[in-house]
C-alpha cells in the first residue's frame, strides 16, 4: 500500500530553495569542508593533538605552529582539527538519539491518543519548560563528565521538539482513510506506524535534525566551557575556549580560533537548515 | 446629464504588473466618466481587472511590481496619475474614499471602531480628538448602528459582518468625499444583510450627492442599485450603458453571455449557460478582441485589431466594443 506523502521535499523544491537563497550554498560548502576536515583529522593535523611540546608553551601563531600553542605546548591547529571530530560526533550522535527516541515517542503518543497522549504531552511540556543549557547542565553534572554522558545529556534536551513534530502529523494521519483500511485488513499498530505514518514525516524530522545539530554543537560547547564536557586532554572546542578564557590576558589565540570554528560550524548548519526548511514548507519562510 | 456633472474622468488608463520579468497590462486603455449623484457599476468575472482599476484610481497598488503605465485620471482639475504621494494621501479618504470586500479583515483588530473612524477625520481635518470621536458617533448613527455612543468604543470583532461593513462606510464618508469607490462591498455578506447595506448606500449617495463606482460580479446587485453599468473583460470596458438599456438590449456577446449565465427567478436553472473558457491571464492577452476565443459570434476580423469602443445610440449613452455587433463608424467617446 503506497504511503501518501504529506510533506515530502520534492527535489524541485529543494533545488528552488537552494537556487533562490545563495547563502545556503555557502552553508553547504562550509559544512562539507568542516566534515571533511574532521573525517581526515589524523591525516591533516600537523601534530598529535595531545602531544606536549614543553619548550613551546603559550606560543603565538608562528610558522611552526600555525595557530599557536596552549599552556601544555600542544598545537592549537591540531587540537582544533581533532576537536572538530569530537564536536561533530557528539552533536550528531546526540541529535540522532534524540531524533529516534523523540520520533518514537511522538508517533506512539499520537497514535495511541487518549490519556496516555495527554500525560505524555504534559511530561514533554515540563521538559520543554527547562532551558536547554540548564537541563543539560543538570544532567551532565549528575552523570559526571564524559563523552557518553555528554551525548546523553544533549540528547535528552532535544527529545521534546522531535516528539512534538512527530506527533502532529501522526494525529492528522490517524484519521485518514488508508489507515482505516489498513486496520481493517488486520495490520498491527506497529506496522501501520512504521510503514504508513512514519515515511510522511521523515522530511520534517530530517529538517529539524539539521537545525538541532546547530543547537547541539552550541550546547556541547557551552557545557564543555563550563567544565562538564569531555575530560582533558581530549580536545573539544568548548574545552579549548575554556583554557583560552583562563589565559585571556596573555594568549588571545587560544580563545579566538576555537570560537571562530564554532561560529562557522553553527552558521553553516543554520544556513543549511534554513534552506532545507524553505524547501519543505514555503509557508514557514520568513518572507 | 451634462459634462459639468462629471466628477472623475478616467482617460485611457493603463495599469501594468511585473510578471516573469516583463510588464503586462491588467487594465488596458480604460476610459470612464463618473458623474455626481450616480452609481456606476463595473461588472466582470474575476481577473477582468475591475479591482485593479479601482485601486489604480487611488494609487493604492503595491509599490513593487505594479505601475500605472499610461493615461490620465482627472479629478478636481488635476491629473491624479501625476500627483506626488503626499498630495495623493491628501485626497485619499478625503475627496475620494474606498470601501473593500472583507469587512472583517479590512478593519484593524486592535483599534476601536471609534478610533478608526476618528482617524479618518483627524487625518484630514484640524479638530481635537474629542471632536473627532463625536463626529465618529454621528457617522455611526448615520449608517444606522444602534447605540452608537456606546458602540463607538467597541472593537471590530464585536460587530457582525453587516455592521462592520456599515462601519467601513461610515469611515469612508467621514470627510464628505465626492467619490466613493466600492470594491465588492456586499459580496461577503448574507443576502438579506446585503440588501440592507445596498439600500443604505443608495440613500447616502442621494443624501450626499456622491459619485459611486460599484464593483461587483453579481448582476443581481447591479440591477438593484446601478444607474449605469460598465462591463469589463480582460482589462477593458466592452460595454457601457444605462442599467435598463443593458438588461434590455445587451449588445456585446460577453454581456449577453453574462446575463444568460446569471441565475434568475424566472428562468429554469437548466437553461443557464456558463460561459466557455476563462478570462485570459494578463500575460496571455492576444491581439484583437480579447473575448474572441470564447465568442460564438467570432469573425476572422475579430482577432486582427483591437476593436474600439463605439457609441451605438444617438444620445451617446450606450457604447460597445465589438467589430461584429458595433462596427466602428464614429470616433470613440
Amino acid at each position, binding site marked *: 500500500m503506497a504511503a501518501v506523502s504529506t510533506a515530502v521535499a520534492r527535489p524541485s523544491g529543494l533545488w528552488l530553495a537552494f537556487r533562490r537563497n545563495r547563502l545556503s550554498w555557502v552553508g553547504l560548502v562550509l559544512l562539507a569542508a568542516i566534515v571533511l576536515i574532521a573525517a581526515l583529522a589524523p591525516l591533516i593535523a600537523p601534530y598529535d593533538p595531545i602531544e606536549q611540546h614543553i619548550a613551546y608553551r603559550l606560543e603565538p601563531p608562528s610558522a611552526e605552529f600555525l595557530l599557536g600553542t596552549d599552556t601544555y605546548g600542544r598545537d592549537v591547529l591540531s587540537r582544533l582539527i581533532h576537536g572538530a571530530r569530537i564536536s561533530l560526533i557528539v552533536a550528531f550522535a546526540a541529535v540522532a538519539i534524540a531524533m529516534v527516541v523523540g520520533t518514537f515517542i511522538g508517533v506512539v503518543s499520537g497514535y495511541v491518543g487518549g490519556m496516555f497522549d495527554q500525560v505524555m504531552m504534559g511530561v514533554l511540556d515540563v521538559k520543554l519548560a527547562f532551558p536547554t543549557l540548564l537541563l543539560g*547542565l543538570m544532567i551532565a553534572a549528575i552523570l559526571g563528565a564524559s563523552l557518553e554522558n555528554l551525548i546523553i545529556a544533549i540528547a535528552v534536551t532535544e527529545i521534546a521538539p522531535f516528539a512534538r513534530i512527530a506527533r502532529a502529523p501522526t494525529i492528522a494521519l490517524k484519521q485518514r482513510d488508508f489507515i482505516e483500511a489498513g486496520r481493517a485488513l488486520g495490520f498491527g499498530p506497529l506496522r501501520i506506524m512504521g510503514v504508513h505514518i512514519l515515511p510522511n514525516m521523515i522530511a520534517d524530522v530530517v529538517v529539524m535534525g539539521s537545525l538541532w545539530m546547530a543547537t547541539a554543537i552550541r550546547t556541547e560547547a557551552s557545557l564543555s566551557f563550563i567544565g562538564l564536557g569531555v575530560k582533558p586532554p581530549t580536545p573539544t572546542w568548548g574545552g579549548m575556549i575554556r583554557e583560552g578564557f583562563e589565559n585571556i590576558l596573555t594568549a588571545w589565540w587560544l580563545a579566538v580560533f576555537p570560537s571562530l570554528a564554532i561560529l562557522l560550524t553553527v552558521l553553516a548548519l543554520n544556513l543549511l537548515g534554513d534552506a532545507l526548511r524553505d524547501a519543505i514548507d514555503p509557508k514557514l519562510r520568513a518572507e | 446629464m451634462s459634462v459639468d456633472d462629471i466628477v472623475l474622468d478616467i482617460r485611457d488608463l493603463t495599469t501594468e504588473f511585473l510578471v516573469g520579468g516583463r510588464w503586462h497590462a491588467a487594465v488596458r486603455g480604460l476610459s470612464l466618466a463618473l458623474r455626481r449623484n450616480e452609481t456606476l457599476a463595473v461588472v466582470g468575472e474575476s481577473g477582468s481587472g475591475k479591482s485593479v482599476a479601482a485601486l489604480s484610481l487611488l494609487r493604492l497598488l503595491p509599490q513593487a511590481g505594479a505601475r500605472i503605465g499610461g493615461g490620465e485620471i482627472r479629478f478636481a482639475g488635476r491629473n491624479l496619475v501625476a500627483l506626488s504621494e503626499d498630495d495623493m494621501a491628501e485626497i485619499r479618504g478625503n475627496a475620494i474614499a474606498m470601501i473593500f470586500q472583507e469587512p472583517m479583515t479590512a478593519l484593524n483588530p486592535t483599534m476601536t471602531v471609534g478610533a478608526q473612524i476618528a482617524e479618518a477625520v483627524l487625518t484630514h481635518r484640524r479638530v481635537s480628538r474629542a471632536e473627532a470621536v463625536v463626529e465618529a458617533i454621528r457617522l455611526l448613527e448615520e449608517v444606522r448602528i444602534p447605540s452608537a455612543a456606546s458602540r463607538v468604543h467597541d472593537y471590530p470583532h464585536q460587530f457582525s459582518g453587516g455592521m462592520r461593513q456599515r462601519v467601513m462606510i461610515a469611515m469612508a464618508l467621514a470627510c464628505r468625499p465626492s467619490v466613493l469607490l466600492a470594491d465588492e462591498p456586499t459580496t461577503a455578506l448574507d443576502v438579506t444583510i446585503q440588501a440592507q447595506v445596498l439600500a443604505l448606500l443608495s440613500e447616502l449617495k442621494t443624501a450626499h450627492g456622491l459619485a459611486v463606482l460599484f464593483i461587483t460580479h453579481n448582476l443581481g446587485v447591479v440591477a438593484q442599485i446601478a444607474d449605469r453599468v460598465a462591463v469589463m473583460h480582460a482589462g477593458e470596458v466592452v460595454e457601457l450603458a444605462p442599467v435598463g438599456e443593458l438588461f434590455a438590449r445587451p449588445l456585446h456577446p460577453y454581456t449577453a453571455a453574462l446575463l444568460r449565465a446569471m441565475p434568475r427567478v424566472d428562468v429554469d436553472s437548466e437553461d443557464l449557460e456558463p460561459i466557455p473558457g476563462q478570462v485570459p491571464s494578463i500575460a496571455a492577452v492576444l491581439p484583437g478582441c480579447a473575448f474572441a476565443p470564447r465568442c460564438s459570434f467570432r469573425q476572422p476580423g475579430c482577432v486582427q485589431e483591437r476593436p474600439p469602443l463605439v457609441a451605438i445610440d444617438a444620445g451617446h449613452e450606450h457604447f460597445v466594443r465589438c467589430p461584429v455587433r458595433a462596427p466602428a463608424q464614429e470616433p470613440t467617446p
Partner: protein
Amino acid sequence: MIRYAALRLVLAVPTLLGMLTVIFVLVRLVPGDAAMVILGEQANEAALQALRSKLGLDQPLYVQYLDFLGGVLTGDFGRSLASGRPVLDEVRFVLPYTIELTAAALGLGVIFGLLLGVLAAVRRNQAADYLGRIFSLVGLSFPAFVSGILLLLVFAVELGWFPVLGGGGEGPAAGLRNLALPALNLGLIMTAYIMRVTRSSMLAVLGEDYIRTARAKGVRARQVIMRHGLRNALIPIITVVGLYFGTLIGNSVLTEIVFNRPGLGKLILGALNTRDYALLQGLMIVFAICIIVVNTLTDLAYGFVDPRVKYK
C-alpha cells in the same frame, strides 16, 4: 478575560510541579552518598549517620519528596552544603546583579530589535533588510559565551576600555563600566532574536487588508507602520519573546561566568565546582519558579494586548 487569566494560572501549577519533581529526581540520582561527599570518605559511620539523619536522607523517598515540596512552599529551598547558608539567602545576595544585567539586556534587545526588525520589514529586500538578516543570522549563531569572550578580548583586553575581571569599585560609574560589556553581549543576542521575530511578524501584518484600508484613508506611511502595523505585530512578538526567557537564563549564566559578574550564573558555577548539590538544587528551583512566572505573565500579557481575547 478573567476566565482566560484563571485558566492560565491553573495550568501553570502542574507544570511547576512537574519541573520541581524533575529537579528532585535528578538531584537524587547523583551517584554516591551525599553524606560522604560532604564529610569526606574518612568520616566515621556515626557522623555519617548523624548527617544523613539531619539531611533527612534516611527517610523513605516519598517522605523526602513531600518534605521537598513543603519546603518550596514555605520558602525553604535547602541549605548550601558549602556555606551552610539557606539557598534563598545566597540568591538574595546576588539577585540584584542578575536583575540589573537582565533588565539592561532586555532594554537593549527590545529597543534595537524592534527598530531593526521594523526597518527590515519596511525596507524589504533592500540593503537594510539584508544587513539586518545577516546580523541576526550571525548573532544567533554565536553561543553566548563565545561572543562574550570575543567582546572581552577586543574591548577589555586589547582596548582596555572595560575591566577584564569583572572589576569592583564603588559608585554608579564603576557599576556602569562593569555592566557595559556583559549587557552588550546579552543585549546583542536578544537584539538578533527580537529583530528576526519582529521582521517576520511585521511582514505578515503588512500584508493584511487593514493596512490597505488605512492607506486608503490617507493615513501617512509612518502612522500606518506604527499604529496599524506594529501594534498588531507586537502580539505574536510578545509571545515569542516570553518564550525566549528560558534561553535568556542560559545565556545570562554563561555571560556572568565569562565576565566574572556576581549573579546566579556564578553561583551555579561555584556549586558545580564544589559539588554542592544542595545549592544546585535550590538554584534550579529558583529558575523553575522564575520560568513559570514569566510564562504565565506572557500568557496574561497576550490576553491583555489582543482585544479579541480581552473582550470575549
